[in-house]
């Protein structure tokens, strides 16, 4: 099975997010960008599908900051090819643009299955997998927690709230939005990543930025108004522990 895994880099949310001068985007200059966590899950599930049934995994980036490291990491983990689509510009790249550029590139490839992270922290104009599927005219299932391949069809588990899930069967080619892989994403050692970097092998493909826009205009980004904020407990761990135990006891739940 030929599987394509598109990946994107998103700001590391551990860091403080500052806004640009006109307040319509995060200030990207000093931000650290990391692989979107759902794409990491999609990569793992794609490797599991390949290991179970053979085939190849092609990882595709969009020219995001530091995407090379994520592409090399994917190669170190077992991806067979890495492609970087360049030319989509700087700053926030919306999902419609990404999906459209990827659909164009895919039209020249032989692909059975696209597996992408179900969402990303900045997909304000919609999630990539359903957009891509609609542009390709392929079936799509999102919020998937397991994929099993079988000839020209796959069976997927789709997750709902409250721990419920459904099993669906989908004819290929198809697009899957992965919520979580069946096992935690594997680890690639620094040595393996270095080896991949030394071997090179990222194929840069220049793409034309698609026409059209999302029809949405960001007026401003802002921090949520605090409707309330926790009363902060300070002091030594012992002091704070005493306060917390008093609070718990006040609710009568501690015997």
């Amino acid at each position, binding site marked *: 099975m030929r599987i394509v895994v598109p990946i994107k880099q998103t700001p590391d*949310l*551990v860091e403080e*997010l500052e806004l640009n001068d006109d307040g319509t985007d*995060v200030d990207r200059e000093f931000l650290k960008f990391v692989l979107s966590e759902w794409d990491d899950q999609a990569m793992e599930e794609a490797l599991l599908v390949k290991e179970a049934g053979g085939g190849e995994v092609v990882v595709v980036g969009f020219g995001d900051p530091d995407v090379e490291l994520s592409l090399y990491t994917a190669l170190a983990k077992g991806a067979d090819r890495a492609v970087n689509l360049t030319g989509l510009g700087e700053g926030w790249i919306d999902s*419609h643009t990404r*999906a459209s550029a990827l659909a164009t590139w895919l039209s020249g490839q032989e692909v059975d299955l696209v597996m992408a992270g179900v969402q990303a*922290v*900045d997909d*304000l*104009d919609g*999630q*990539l997998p*359903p*957009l891509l599927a*609609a542009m390709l005219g392929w*079936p*799509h299932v*999102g*919020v998937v927690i397991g994929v099993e391949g079988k000839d020209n069809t796959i*069976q997927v588990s789709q997750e709902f*709230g*409250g*721990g*419920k*899930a*459904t*099993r*669906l069967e*989908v*004819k290929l080619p*198809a697009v899957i*939005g992965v919520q*979580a892989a069946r*096992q935690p994403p594997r680890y690639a050692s620094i040595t393996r990543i270095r080896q991949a970097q030394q071997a090179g092998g990222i194929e840069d493909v220049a793409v034309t930025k698609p026409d059209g826009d*999302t*029809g*949405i*205009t*960001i*007026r401003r*980004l*802002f*921090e*949520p108004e605090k409707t*309330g*904020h*926790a*009363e*902060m407990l*300070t002091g030594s*761990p012992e002091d704070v*522990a*005493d*306060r*917390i*135990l008093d*609070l*718990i006891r006040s*609710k009568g*739940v501690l015997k």
Partner: protein
Amino acid sequence: MANEILVLADHLGGQLSDATLELVGKAKELAGATGGQAVVALLGAPDLAGQITGADTVLTMDHPSLADYTPEAWEKALLHIVNERQPRLVLIANTTIGMDLGAGLSAVWGAPLVAYAVRLEAEGGDIVATAQVYGGKLLAEVAISGDRAICTVVAGSFPAGAGGGSPGVESLAPPSGLDDLKTSFLTMVEPEGGDVDITAAELLVSVGRGIGSQDNLEEVQELADTLGAPLSASRPITDAGWLPKTRQVGKSGLKVKPKVYLTFGISGAPEHLEGMRDAELIIACNTDAAAPIFDVAHYGTTVDLFDLVPALTDKI
């Protein structure tokens, strides 16, 4: 029909989600402002129509492929309906169904989409949405141009509609495309019974990504045991397999409402907050003072959990 606000009814296994009625309430309000009507599209479960109050009209569509949700069949049915009705705005709950259909409909219908919306207003003829971005750390105020739009809305953003009369029900014929699909429904998988029912606990100790490794879980487990509380977790912990899925609190896990919810290393992603914000007393421990968990917690501390947890255990 240009001023219609169309709500997609969100249901699974014969149960209408609460989010549906929240959207109906908002649709009615927006329709009032734009001089239109609030219309609900109910796919595949016509018997649920009686549960939908406060809308002007309920459109039902029935077909064997719509009975159990698949994204392909529902997207075709929804596209058929919006092509017929040309609503001004389509509202979909940001559930699994909304995550599938919002963006899909945006591409096939050619309408702008704002995902993860938490606020919606009509400004003159325009729709202005405010949506969560960057894990809820920021909000984006977004103007939507054109004469059609879609918003997927985070559950709990609006109060449920104030009730009102039973709307008229109109039955629509399904499009022929539903007879030729590439996706088929196989079976529903119910959640496994857990060793403990975290929804029944009065006191919950909950851990998140900040715990760092599975080995560190032991110390928090010891505290939970000493407190006589079950250990629950946010998604990264159950995805990693460190705790069973039945312990997961949040949008895709369980909703809990204990008397006390004590968290360690949980930053408070919107998906997690959705599952615990109604707890009576929330006490959060996280080293990042800007973590969103402190916006819903009643008490918080940035003391390192590896210092605080043993201190708590010692004192009980």
